[in-house]
Structures are given as C-alpha cells and as structure tokens.
C-alpha cells in the first residue's frame, strides 16, 4: 500500500467554524461584594474551560460587555489564546438596554468579519445576566433580540441573579426560552454548563439540533 497513501502536504486546511458568544453582564452597584466576586470566579472558570477544550478553543469566540454605570466592552472577540481574563468591578446604575444594543452590534460585525474571511460560523449566543431592573429604556433592544430569535439568528440565555432580578424584563428579550434564576451565586456551575454546551455546538453537523444540556446544576427551578 506504500503508493496508496495520502500525505498531509497534499491536503488542505480550513479554519474551524466559529461560535460567537457574547456575555452581557450586570456590574452595577448592587453587584458589589460577594456577587461580583463570584461572577469574576465564574468568568475565569469559563474562559479557562474553553481554553482547555481542544474543540471549544478552536471554535468559541467570546466577547464580554458589562453594564454598571456605563456600558463597556471589556473583552473583544478573538481566539481564546489571545485573550486575558478581565477583573470586573461593580459600580453605578444598570443601563441594560444600551448594553444589549452594543452586544448585538458587535455580533453582527463579527459575523461580517467571518463572512469576509470565508470562515463558517454557527448561530451566535448571547448570555444576559442581571441582578436587578434596568435603569434605561430596553424597548428597542428587546425588540431587536426578539426579532433575531424568531428568525433563528440568535440564541439568548437570560439569567436572573438573586431575588431582585427583574424576570419580566429578561422575558421581554426572550420570546422562546423563559428566563432562569441562578441558584444562589452558582456562577461556576452556570459557566461550566455554558462551556460544555459550546463544545457540543461546535461539533454539531448539518441538520443537527444542538441539544441543550440539562440546566439543573445551576438553575433555581423552585416556584
């Protein structure tokens, strides 16, 4: 079979298909203390998990937008190898609408970049976490996410933190999936679940629905 072998140099490589994930995180004043510390630990765990998984590291691209006082993009979309883990601090009001609008703009721009480079991509994911109620108008942002979701152009994970999270507002962003309240401050469990779900999504093939993993490790499902 010696002359019936194919060699690597006679084959071609393609960039792996990307899964853009935007974390939109509440860093308003009410997150001070244990909540922001736990959120920081969760984000760190998440980025490390993605980095350590062969497939997720090649596929996942993470951006982080925070809303606390102002709206900031603290992590830009890039390969995980080139990203550093942010240290989030809590301060100010809760401009959630503005943060979601910025995130949608960033996801749209990222998709354009992929398309221009001939890189395939999966449907973007947006994780929205808040422990309170927005201090700005969310009407436009909620309309944008709802329309994208209905057209199968976005998956959103709306997560409430603590008893004061405004679940009705989160629901307005998510016509398909109901918002879920985090069990206590179990950010670690949530982010572990998220990185595993990204790994599954990055291996999905045409026609395959990405099976959502069970959310019980981190969700407060009590009524």
């Amino acid at each position, binding site marked *: 079979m010696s002359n019936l072998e194919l060699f690597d140099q006679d084959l071609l490589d393609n960039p792996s298909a990307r899964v853009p994930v935007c974390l939109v995180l509440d860093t308003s004043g009410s997150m001070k203390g244990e909540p922001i510390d736990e959120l920081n630990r969760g984000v760190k765990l998440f980025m490390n998990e993605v980095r350590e998984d062969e497939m997720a590291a090649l596929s996942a691209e993470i951006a982080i937008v925070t809303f606390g006082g102002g709206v900031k993009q603290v992590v830009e979309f890039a390969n995980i190898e080139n990203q550093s883990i942010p240290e989030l601090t809590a301060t100010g009001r809760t401009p959630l609408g503005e943060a979601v609008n910025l995130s949608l703009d960033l996801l749209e721009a990222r998709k354009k970049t992929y398309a221009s480079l001939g890189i395939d991509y999966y449907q973007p994911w947006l994780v929205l976490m808040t422990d309170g109620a927005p201090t700005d108008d969310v009407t436009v942002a909620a309309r944008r996410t709802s329309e994208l979701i209905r057209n199968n152009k976005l998956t959103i994970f709306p997560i409430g933190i603590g008893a004061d999270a405004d679940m009705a507002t989160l629901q307005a962003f998510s016509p398909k999936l109901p918002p879920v309240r985090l069990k206590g401050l179990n950010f670690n469990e949530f982010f572990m679940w998220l990185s595993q779900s990204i790994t599954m999504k990055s291996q999905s093939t045409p*026609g395959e629905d990405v099976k959502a993993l069970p959310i019980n490790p981190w969700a407060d499902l009590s009524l």
Partner: protein
Amino acid sequence: MSSQLETAQWKSGCAYVRGRSHIKEDVPCQDRAKGMEKDGVALIALADGAGSAKCSHIGAELAIEAVSAELTAGFDEALSLQEEDIAAGWLDRILASLESTADANGMVAADYASTLLVVAVKGDSYIAGHLGDGLIAVEREELEVLSHPENGEYANSTYFTTSRDAEARLRIYRGNVEDIKAFFLMSDGTAAAMHRRTDDTLAPALKTISGWFMEHSVETIEQALHQNLEQVIKNKTFDDCSIAVMRRID
C-alpha cells in the same frame, strides 16, 4: 453493444467512515457512497444523512438507490428535459421511497433526511445533481469544482431531500465528458481536507487518488480510500467522511 464498451471506460471506487464526533456520541456513520454500472450508465452517488434525523443513515442509502434507479433508466430522457423537471422526478422517487420506509417503521420522511450528490455518464454525456453541502469536483487538465456546497447562513445548516425547497435547491449539471478524466463526490467532512474555501482551491491529493485507478483494482482502491479516510482525512474534521470517485481509464 456499443454502450457496454463505452461504460467500460469508467471505473469507480467509494468509501465512507464514521467521524470523531459520532464515535464519541455512539451514533452510526451517516454518510453513504456507491458506484454502479447498469444499462450503459456508469454512476457514482453519495449522501450525507442529516445529523438530527434518527434514521438518516438509512435515508442516505435510500436516496442513493432511488436516484441511481431513476438515472440508469431515465438517462437519455433526462438529457432533453428541463432541469427543474429532472429535479422533480428524482425527488418524487426519493420521497416515495423515504415515505414508504417511514410508514413501515412508524417514522416520518424527515427522519430519513440526507444531502445528495450524484454523477452519471453515458456515452459522451454526463448528468450530475447536487443537493445541500459537500462538493463535486472534476479533473480535466487541472482540478475544478463542478458544484460548491450550499449551506444556510450557519455552519450546521444545509438543504436535505426532505427540505421544503429541495426541488429548487437540487442543482442539475449536464455536459460533455470529452475532456474530463475523473469525477469526485465528497461529503462536507471529506471536503474539509480536499477543498479550501477561502481561495476555492482543491487538494493535490485528488489527483493522487485519480492516479490509483490507472494501476490498481477497484477492491484495492476502495481499501486504500477507506484507510486514508480513517487515518488521514478524519483527523481534519469531526464529521463523517465519504468519497466516491469515477475515473476514465481509456
């Protein structure tokens, strides 16, 4: 008699292997590929079962069988039909087959969804069809893409035999084989190693494979294709990998 001689000019070989992701999830290989000769028609066909469809590995086989039957019996007629009528004829036959199998097993046709790639040659003419992703290439002096993958916006979306708009998405190609040395059908898993999307380049490995047909038996070639999919190509993708090749040997 003459058709016997003509089809004898083409030799085909196929292989398919289960991808790394399906091994991990303990799901069967959903790719299928086949070559055949009948009634003066030489043909290769390949189908990639839809990831979420429960019986798509069976659906891939049924689609290949149905289109092979349709093309071997109807080749001459298809040369003069409108493209949309050819597509409609193939899909009618495929769907009838999927539906009857689904009915017998308490399933629905969508459980048998797959893509479809086919090339048939008779005399100087070829007819090819392509639905969904994967790739059809030809070797003239150089390698050329005959039909590109058609995905939706997302990497895990494409068109299947049971898609609502399958008829409109099934692309038909017809032409003369005069300057064509070989045809290649690839599932998207194999295409990941054989076609670079950014500059639309085909891998030199395809020429290597084409060369094997001049020196080896079909059995040896199919063994080699299987082994190379298993040991080399599969490492470039998580998906199932399949390939079907038809080479002119005169």
